[in-house]
């Protein structure tokens, strides 16, 4: 075992982690970034359409309108102070990214070019607004590359392919992490004053997902096992437009450029569900509409998919109908959506300029996660008690600026804004904080867990358990939910956790790049999060944002303007037996904007 000491340890090297690393190191902290992937492999790089910021480069815009759209899109579960910070800081963060060299597309005047995106409007919901700053349809790739480049320039220390498997606590504070060096199998302890988790989401819990294989929720699971509650885990976003069967994301930017959703009868069905902004309604609304169309037999060939149509003739027909003067050509679509066209051509043999794309909703984004305040400090309860030394940002965190449903582009905003704030806060913190010693035998428990896993000589392969978990979560804790199905999911996940604990088998007993063992361990993390997600979903007896209960179809602001905190009740992180959690509903939603401006008060959400 080796021990490394730094002021700050950043776990994960996507947008939030790199942003935090950059700003902490610029603030004078000695920073290590520990990541299970090479940084440029992180999932931020797959974000496509844009990053929202009220720059107003094409038409008037205002951060307050952005905050309003965020709160409304989140079905009023978003903490309004966080939504305000998100929208206001977005402007500075995007400008700073440009100053770091990020190659945004440009307007004729040379400013950052912006496009429309779902749920983003001007003047409190009046009409769609061009707010998404874009670099073709690879905005996330550009953000990830730019941040990695700047970290190299600032000589940030990287530990690539070091997989964090435990978080270390001592004297009521977080003092670091334990990681497996994948190339050798050796354990390393990273000891620091501040630790920031930026480990991304856990979409691999579901059968059809846009998420990378690496998105298994490790960071959230290890913090939970060490006593940190998980907030709002029942809210998981299904993006409306994933490539049929494969789940690969087709950006909302396609609809931003004028693409429309079409059912088997050739109807633009979103006109029924969101008369005002139609295909650009927020994602939960559009995903539900697609499910309802499919349920009514309106899927293509009666199957479980619909078409996304961005052929110039279709786009131009609807533009003309809407009285807009803009027209598009095939060449422009090639220029603006090159990656989307490439995905469809490679994986489907479909050319979107000539044919519509078959799509279905795909599990995309965890709104819930590790609870934090707006400075990315981890908070433990409804009183916002800070856990000293521990921070989280990006998808693994729950600020909560997204509430019950995240708006498109706001994931990139979230990770740059709160990664940046976290990095700044850490730089400040490490200047005055003392280094708390490591706990005795810091690797003992995780070593025992890996020993147990290695010794497991059962009958069931991790892949079998994983596939069953993914199908169960998709079927019963997906776009639509009801008590009986959720209970079924809870029971099945417990059965799978039991199998995982008692009857697992895998092949590789080596140490060098033992991806077999690591995948098995990742499955354990996902099973824990699946259990928490399902239990949280069962408890929330209302429909709000992405959490849509068929047995409780109304939003219930009297009883449910609260966050769910799932607190671990287990005596040890690796206790076997059923997942024991205590659900706490005492953390009220922040309504500070509504207190001064009635337009922010919760009301029915109409698009």
């Amino acid at each position, binding site marked *: 075992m080796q021990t490394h000491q730094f002021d700050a340890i950043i776990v994960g090297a996507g947008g939030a982690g790199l942003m935090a690393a950059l700003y902490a190191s610029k603030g004078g902290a000695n920073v290590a970034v520990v990541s299970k992937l090479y940084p440029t492999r*992180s999932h931020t*790089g797959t974000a496509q359409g844009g990053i929202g910021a009220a720059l107003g480069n094409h038409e008037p815009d205002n951060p307050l309108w952005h905050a309003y759209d965020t709160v409304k899109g989140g079905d009023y579960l978003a903490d309004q102070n966080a939504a305000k910070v998100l929208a206001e800081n977005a402007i500075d963060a995007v*400008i700073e990214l440009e100053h770091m060299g990020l190659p945004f597309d440009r307007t004729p005047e040379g*400013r950052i070019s912006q496009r429309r995106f779902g749920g983003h409007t001007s003047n409190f919901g009046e009409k769609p607004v061009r707010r998404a700053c874009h670099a073709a349809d690879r905005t996330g790739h550009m953000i990830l590359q730019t941040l990695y480049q700047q970290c190299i320039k600032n000589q940030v220390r990287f530990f690539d392919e070091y997989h964090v498997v435990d978080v270390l606590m001592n004297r009521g504070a977080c003092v670091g992490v334990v990681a497996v060096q994948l190339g050798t199998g050796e354990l390393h302890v990273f000891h620091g004053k501040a630790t920031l988790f930026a480990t991304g989401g856990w979409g691999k819990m579901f059968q059809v997902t846009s998420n990378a294989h690496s998105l298994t929720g490790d960071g959230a699971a290890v913090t939970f096992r060490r006593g940190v509650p998980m907030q709002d885990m029942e809210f998981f976003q299904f993006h409306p437009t994933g490539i049929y069967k494969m789940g690969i994301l087709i950006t909302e930017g396609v609809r931003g450029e004028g693409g429309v959703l079409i059912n088997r009868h050739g109807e633009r069905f979103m006109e029924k569900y969101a008369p005002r902004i139609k295909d650009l309604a927020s994602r939960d609304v559009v995903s539900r509409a697609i499910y309802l169309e499919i349920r009514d037999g309106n899927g293509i060939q009666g199957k479980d998919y619909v078409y996304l149509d961005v052929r110039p003739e279709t786009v131009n027909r609807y533009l003309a109908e809407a009285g807009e003067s803009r027209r598009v050509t095939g060449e422009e679509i090639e220029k603006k959506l090159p990656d989307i066209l490439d995905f469809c051509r490679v994986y489907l043999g479909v050319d979107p300029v000539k044919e519509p794309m078959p799509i279905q909703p795909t599990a995309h984004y965890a709104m819930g996660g590790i609870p934090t305040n707006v400075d990315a400090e981890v908070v433990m309860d409804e009183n916002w008690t800070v856990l000293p030394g521990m921070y989280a940002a990006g998808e693994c965190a729950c600020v909560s600026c997204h509430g019950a449903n995240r708006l498109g582009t706001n994931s990139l905003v979230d990770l740059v804004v709160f990664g940046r704030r976290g990095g700044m806060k850490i730089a400040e913190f490490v200047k005055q904080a003392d280094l708390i010693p490591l706990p005795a035998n810091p690797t003992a428990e995780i070593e025992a867990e890996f020993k147990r896993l290695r010794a497991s000589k059962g009958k069931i392969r991790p892949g079998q358990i994983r596939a069953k978990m993914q199908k169960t979560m998709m079927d019963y804790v997906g776009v639509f939910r009801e008590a009986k199905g959720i209970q079924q999911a809870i029971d099945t996940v417990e059965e799978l956790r039991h199998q995982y604990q008692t009857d697992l088998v895998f092949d590789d007993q080596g140490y060098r790049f033992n991806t077999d063992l690591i995948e098995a361990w990742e499955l354990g993390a996902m099973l824990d999060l699946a259990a928490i997600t399902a239990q949280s979903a069962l408890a929330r007896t209302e429909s709000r944002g992405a959490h849509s209960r068929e047995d409780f179809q109304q939003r219930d602001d009297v009883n449910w303007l609260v966050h769910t905190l799932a607190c671990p009740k287990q005596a040890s992180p690796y206790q076997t037996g059923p997942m024991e959690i205590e659900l706490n509903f005492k953390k009220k939603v922040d309504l500070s904007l509504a207190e001064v401006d009635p337009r922010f008060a919760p009301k029915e959400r109409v698009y």
Partner: protein
Amino acid sequence: MDVTFRIRRYNPEIPGKDKPHWQEFKLSDVEPTDRVLEMLHRIKWEQDGTLAFRRSCAHGVCGSDAMRINGVNRLACKVLVRDLGNRIQVEPILGLPVLKDLIVDMEPFFEHYRAVMPFFVNDTPLPADGRERLQSPEDREKFDDTTKCILCACCTTACPSFWANGKYVGPAAIVQAHRFIFDSRDLAGDDRLDILASPDGVWRCRTIFNCTPACPRDIEITKAIGEVKLAIRNGSTEGIIEVRDIKHEA
């Protein structure tokens, strides 16, 4: 359909498997539209969990799973069985030390990347209005192609000049340098051109063109390398890249 995979294996931890060797796996019920990566997962998850390879996004964006597939560098997640037939050979990319099965040591590759100053440099005062630096759509277009690079190493490990001499920075590092050299906002272009004019720089490229078809992002790599060579020869980036008309949109 039935497909036979022939995979180059190497595991230094296991006596008898510690020399590179081939192993065959048979898969049935394969769909022509299945990705090679999915098939590697089926082998790993159903037949032999010790098979080691890198992967993440599974749709050609993260750059983890560069491999030599039927003799050509590809991303395993971006090549379909129907394009390969029912005998598929998979081996690690060439020119980097193999660590286990399909996993190579990427450090030499990233060392070359870091050597070309792959980051934006401009220390002049920021615009007084607190907003973005301006750049015309035409200037932005000049380096658009090379911003697409995902550092997968398909190009560098397809290059005979790199195979012959690992000190050569290789196509990927030149692509990365190109992205900044031709960015009108960047001010360190001359420094990068100096680095690339060194003996292990751009002149080791013999214009063999292996890099261009190897690129999963369709970057015109050989062309980009040629543009860097011209800039070194001319001592300037002026007039090298012609931008076709861009339609200005309101």
